[in-house]
């Protein structure tokens, strides 16, 4: 049930983000995670608090799944002083050091070397933490990705590369972007990295696959590459429609039939004797939490211009 709660939090949070974006409360680029919730929730559930997470620019879901306070996440999106990054990061650069959420990065592929670096530090110190690195299939063709896979394999770095394959790099489908598109994880196999695939709409399957992968990484001190097949229900960013030139409404509707929340709810109702009452209660709790996050963000002050030049350098 807690997995459902987490996924619902992300879903409702993202829906409110869309509203707030339309109202002009959130600016810039805003990439929502709706449809992909099972990947973040299933994967992060397996981690220890001292493990590290790196993410890309579609990072709200990963950050919330890690347990960051929705109020401070929303405040960051609103560009307020109470935001996780004091309003200096924004949607694509959420960071929560306390939870070892090492950040969202917005140059595609550019954060994979960082994740390998945190894993290098773990190994250097003789620790047993692992690094979970989320990225989209759009990052797979980048040089940074291939250089990182090579280094991680070469040096036995404890990283789980979790590729969220939502089938489109913005508007370019994977089959027009990745040579080995039928099984993106083959790119890792070429470097001698063990790899697997999982249904990214099924949170229980994700949790199980990530659990095995993390065990592999932690005990063998070897990287692992897991491809989660998922789908984003909305456009690439708030600036785009959910369908149009590059994919059809029928395709999106088809994907929505495997909504990760729906899939889990069905199983909970049939296999775990959960009741409609339970879901109503959770829905209410989550709606309240998200509303509070919006209220908190709205009531928070903008960052002071006198702090503009703070945090450029460590004094």
């Amino acid at each position, binding site marked *: 049930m807690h997995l459902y709660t987490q996924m619902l939090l992300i879903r409702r949070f993202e829906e409110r983000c869309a509203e707030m974006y339309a109202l002009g409360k959130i600016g810039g680029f805003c990439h929502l995670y709706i449809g992909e919730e099972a990947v973040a929730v299933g994967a992060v559930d397996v981690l220890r608090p001292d493990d590290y997470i790196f993410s890309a620019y579609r990072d709200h879901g990963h950050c919330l799944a890690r347990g960051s306070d929705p109020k401070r996440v929303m405040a960051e999106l609103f560009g307020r002083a109470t935001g996780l990054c004091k309003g200096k990061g924004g949607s694509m650069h959420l960071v929560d050091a306390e939870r070892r959420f090492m950040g969202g990065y917005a140059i595609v592929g550019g954060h994979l070397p960082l994740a390998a670096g945190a894993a*290098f530090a773990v190994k250097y110190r003789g620790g047993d933490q692992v690094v979970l690195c989320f990225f989209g299939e759009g990052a797979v063709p980048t040089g940074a990705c291939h250089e990182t896979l090579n280094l991680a394999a070469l040096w036995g770095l404890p990283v789980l590369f979790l590729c969220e394959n939502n089938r489109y790099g913005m508007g370019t489908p994977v089959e027009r972007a990745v040579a080995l598109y039928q099984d993106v994880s083959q790119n890792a196999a070429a470097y001698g990295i063990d790899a697997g695939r999982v249904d990214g709409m099924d949170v229980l399957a994700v949790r199980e696959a990530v659990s095995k992968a993390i065990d592999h990484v932690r005990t063998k001190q070897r990287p692992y590459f897991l491809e989660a097949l998922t789908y984003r229900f909305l456009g690439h960013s708030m600036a785009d429609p959910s369908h149009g030139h590059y994919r059809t409404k029928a395709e999106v509707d088809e994907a929505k039939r495997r909504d990760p929340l729906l899939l889990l709810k069905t199983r909970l109702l049939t296999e775990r004797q959960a009741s409609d009452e339970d879901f109503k209660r959770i829905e209410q709790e989550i709606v309240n939490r998200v509303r509070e996050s919006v209220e908190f963000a709205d009531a928070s002050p903008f960052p002071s211009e006198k702090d503009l030049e703070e945090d450029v350098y460590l004094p």
Partner: protein
Amino acid sequence: MKATYREALNQALREEMRRDDRVFLIGEDVAYYQGAFKVSKGFLEEFGPRRVVDTPITEPGFTGLAIGAAMAGLRPVVEVMTFNFAILALDQIVNNAAKVRYMSGGQFSVPIVIRGPGSAAHQLGAQHSQSLEAWFCHVPGLKVVAPATPYDAKGLIKSAIRDGNPVVFIEAQLLYPTQGEVGDGDYTIPLGVAEVKRPGTDVTLIAYSKMLLVALEAAERLAQEGIQVEVVDPRTLRPLDLTTLAASARKTGKVVIIEEGWPFAGLGAQIAESLYQRVFDYLDGPILRVTGRDVPMPYARNLEDAVIPDVNRVIAAVHQALYRK
């Protein structure tokens, strides 16, 4: 104690690695080969492969990896074989190292040193002869250091390693064999502090890295004509010690800036602008620049010599500043 620039760096890095287990050296051929320019001679023997890490040829990969390691608590020293290759890692340096602290609202910092030789040596051609310091100086979040002497190299690399910010530390192939006095044992030179390398009264020459040697030689020759040149080395290019530079400019009223890099949007343009803001009323004439010529570096020796600022061009500029023929 006398040491070469190369030995000074070797000593300083060695002492820092002995002092702090978090410090490690990573780059192409730094371990078994002992560094393309032998700066890390003997390191593998003393510190082992855990702390002296040979990499494949993968600048974005290992630079980014070092940045991630710094975020997770280590103090990496990245050797780029030359700064020409750092262009490959520019995304990591500019988008990650320089911005992580700011984007995270101060939650993370990136204590990393990226070091190696910049500027031209002899006939290495267009892709191996570039002076790119202005590129790095442009970026808030980075510090940029370019020492000219063995003494400064030792004291500044130590400060760079102990600094909590990303530091781009630019050496020079032609400086590695140069000799100088080096202090014994542990000393540091703070980042952001210039030094008057030769006091004078008539004109201020501002020069850093290899060009300091050109400036000092020009000053010596000009002294024979009775011109007393003050030579100031910023040593750190960002943050720039404008207090010291401006004090000298105010004293002499004439300024010539020497840089090996390209003239257009070069570092000298920035230094001149900053000085105009502070000392315009004290100047007897426009600030002059002696720069590399505005071309990719040619291979032929005579053409290469024509590109790189030399003593004669500096003397001519000083004469011009003094309105002498």
